[in-house]
């Protein structure tokens, strides 16, 4: 499996979405999040989007005030993960319409459902936005 965790963090370093595909205790998560957020947020625009941390490689991308950080294995294709983050953001954009931090905070489950349709157990499930969103839209229609 390639992806170990996906984090969404705001400019202040607060976690807004966290999905782990391997088990870490609560303390380990907090420590890990703190460390990588500090590392990534300190980097400038000109620096590359990859940071090595412990035995992970963090691929991150910034969208306005939101940072998307994806922890991957060392042999994962970093450029592809970068593209994946963009796909995730585009998918959320299509659903929420120009997604922002508050959309994700107040619709945390929905964000998780989308993620679930895209990644399972650290592997990519689906790359078509409409395929990802159709079950979610169906659900909304029903309720």
């Amino acid at each position: 499996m390639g992806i170990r965790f996906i984090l969404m963090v705001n400019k202040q370093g607060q976690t807004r979405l966290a999905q782990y595909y391997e088990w870490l205790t609560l303390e380990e998560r907090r420590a890990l999040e703190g460390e990588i957020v500090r590392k990534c947020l300190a980097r400038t625009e000109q620096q590359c989007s990859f940071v090595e941390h412990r035995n992970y490689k963090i691929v991150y991308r910034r969208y306005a005030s939101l940072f998307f950080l994806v922890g991957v294995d060392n042999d994962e294709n970093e450029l592809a993960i970068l593209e994946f983050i963009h796909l995730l953001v585009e998918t959320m954009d299509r659903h929420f319409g120009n997604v922002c931090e508050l959309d994700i905070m107040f619709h945390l489950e929905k964000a998780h459902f989308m993620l679930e349709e895209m990644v399972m157990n650290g592997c990519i499930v689906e790359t078509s936005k409409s395929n990802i969103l159709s079950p979610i839209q169906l659900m909304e229609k029903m309720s």
Partner: protein
Amino acid sequence: MNPFSSGTRLRDMIRSIRACKTAAEERAVVRKECAAIRAAINENDQDYRHRNLAKLMFIHMLGYPTHFGQMECLKSIASAGFPEKRIGYLGLMLLLDERQEVLMLVTNSLKQDLNHTNQYIVGLALCALGNICSAEMARDLAPEVERLLQFRDPNIRKKAALCSIRIIKKVPDLAENFINPAAALLKEKHHGVLITGIQLVTDLCKVSTEALEFFRKPKCLDGLVKTLRDVVNSPYAPEYDIAGITDPFLHIRLLKLLRVLGQGDADASDCMNDILAQVATKTESNKNAGNAILYECVETIMSIEDNGGLRVLAINILGRFLSNRDNNIRYVALNMLMKAITVDAQAVQRHRATILECVKDLDASIRKRALELVYLLVNESNVKPLTKELIDYLEISDQEFKGDLTAKICSMVEKFSPDKIWYIDQMLKVLSEAGNFVKDEVWHALIVVISNASDLHGYTVRALYRAVQTSIEQESLVRVAIWCIGEYGDMLVNNGGVLNIEDPITVTESDAVDVVEIAIKHHSSDITTKAMAMVALLKLSSRFPSCSERIRDIIVQNKGSLVLELQQRSIEFNSIVEKHQNIRSTLVERMPVLDEATFSGRRAGSLPATVSTSSGTSLNLPNGVAKPAAAPLVDLLDLSSDDAPVPSSSGNDFLQDLLGVDVSPASVQPGTSQAPKAGTDVLLDLLSIGSPPVQNNSTPSDILSSSQDNKSSVAKLDGLSPTPSGGAASMIDLLDGFVPNSPKPEDNGPAYPSIVAFESSSLRLTFNFSKPPGNPQTTLIQATFTNLSPNVYTDFVFQAAVPKFLQLHLDPASGNTLPASGNGSITQTLRVTNSQHGKKPLVMRTRIAYKLNNRDVLEEGQINNFPRDL
């Protein structure tokens, strides 16, 4: 109704958490919410279960414990409605993990849901199972998942495929059941099914050789190649298009799978050559998505079996990446070149200059990668220019990068240096630039090298003297400098051994002492540096008689030092300088050459290993005490430079070597002689140079043992000749703390009586014998020379000759000056191998030359009184 359970809406909770200004406020809000949720759970409140779970997920994300909500997830999953199940499964994946026993309770619900008529519910169950399933669940539910791989809806098939990955990883035995269904998935058109099917096949091949063989067959492989070709050539597909490329993710997964199949299989590699060439040449490289595919393609080309043409193509792509302006692209290029170096080092070498530029990049990630790559590129032919570049860069690099950079420079200089002078030069540059980042073993190694380069002693000490003038704040430079000034101070002052490349400098004795004094007084110097400076001063006091008084003053200043180590050294050294002029010169003689092999062996084994080897040797040695005790000493002081077992009296040897004090019973009376007592402490000091301060713990007890309890310790020293084990034991006392469990002196009284091999009115030579274990032919002879005249002998040289059936090896002598009146001695170890062991006794001719009042004296003799069975 419970006053809490009406609770707040999710939205309100999030608002109030967002409004918190401090962490404490947030904790308070969360505590209150958790209390309400717990109350609701206790009341089995079903109306708000959905909302409470959503809140718990939010709270969990913030990093607070939510274990009390786990059962709610299970209840929610067990309920009939889809929305409840959905939130329940989400909670299950977020709040639980496979290690919790609660999970066992969910197996049944999962099984039911996998067989549910509503395909969305099946999808939920598959997704949850794929994320959290344990080995037991995998066994229980594998048949359901297998069946779902053929489900009519592709959305279920794709999830079942990923679920299967988890199952075969948990229980690899199940892999064979999935080979056929997985092969069927590869023929699908739906991208989601295809990409998940490919991932399943990749993982199958990793866990099962049977699967690997199966998918390598042309039947499957050709299908995969065709799929890749179709994807590459597919017309515009808006749903999957990224920057003009159709589904780059699918491209990448396919290339990954081809890599797994092609690795180690020439035929399979052959099958994919064409399509890889097509991908490598046709893919647009002006967008990230295209580069991601190229990157993956290069990795596959590098991993599969050799095809020269493709590799050239791949290296060229990396070259293009390397000169790209986008940092991300350069990063992956460096990453890939690291892998390529094992395949084609020559091709990577061509990009050396560019890689070297990347070491100086502003971006820490790129710098780190590039440095690692440069390190891999170093060889004998390019070490000089590369080192120069890196050292130049060291000057201007970031503080946080200096550590990595120095470590790598030191390592490559050490590994590939063509000659010693270059090595010393480069190390001095590194030490002057970033001495504080240099690890201890690095400068230890430098000292060993310097010690071995006898023709460079003068050059080195002068270079160090110059360097330390400008870089006094670099601790390890200062340490090396004061060690060398202590040892070779005389060469610094009288310009000994000048090389023609040097600029001449004039250094007075007092200048040299200045350096040491500055080091001892500098605010940043730590205790090790100060202690080393103290020893250097003691040495200089003998080398520079004119500065003796000043040195004494500096030493005395530390008498009141709060650091025990320094205080003790100060008092002892002062006493040597003041009261023991006669032994001082012998005591502070230049260190014997340090043995490189021993040092590097030690270094490889580092400290814990040293302890273990020492306990190991103690088993082999008949009297394995002295050597183990000496082993963990700082390597610098390793005197027993050969690996041969040391004879029983080597404890004795040590003392005499270092101190030149005669500790034979004749001259030392317990409690009356100061010399051996001071001597033992000095020994301790000399031996503890560079040792971590922790070892101070042992020092007080040593002082006690040699002052209060001096009777017994001196008595032990006394007893050296008759019972060498006693001497050895007292060594252990002195070195207490080095050896965790001081090996008990074994029964190691000399098996052979000592003999007086030669005696004249002016000189006595005694031999002590020992046998290394397991080698009866070899005898170790410890020769001890004692001066019986009232005059000092200088330039003392001992030579020996043996008949052909014997082999003789002479180790370096402990010194070449023999103090007057039995006030010290020289020892030397001889190793004799008797090829006629048991038939012929040993026999030896000796020749002893020395100077007495500048007059040459020669004494010769033949030794026939060896014990018979040597």
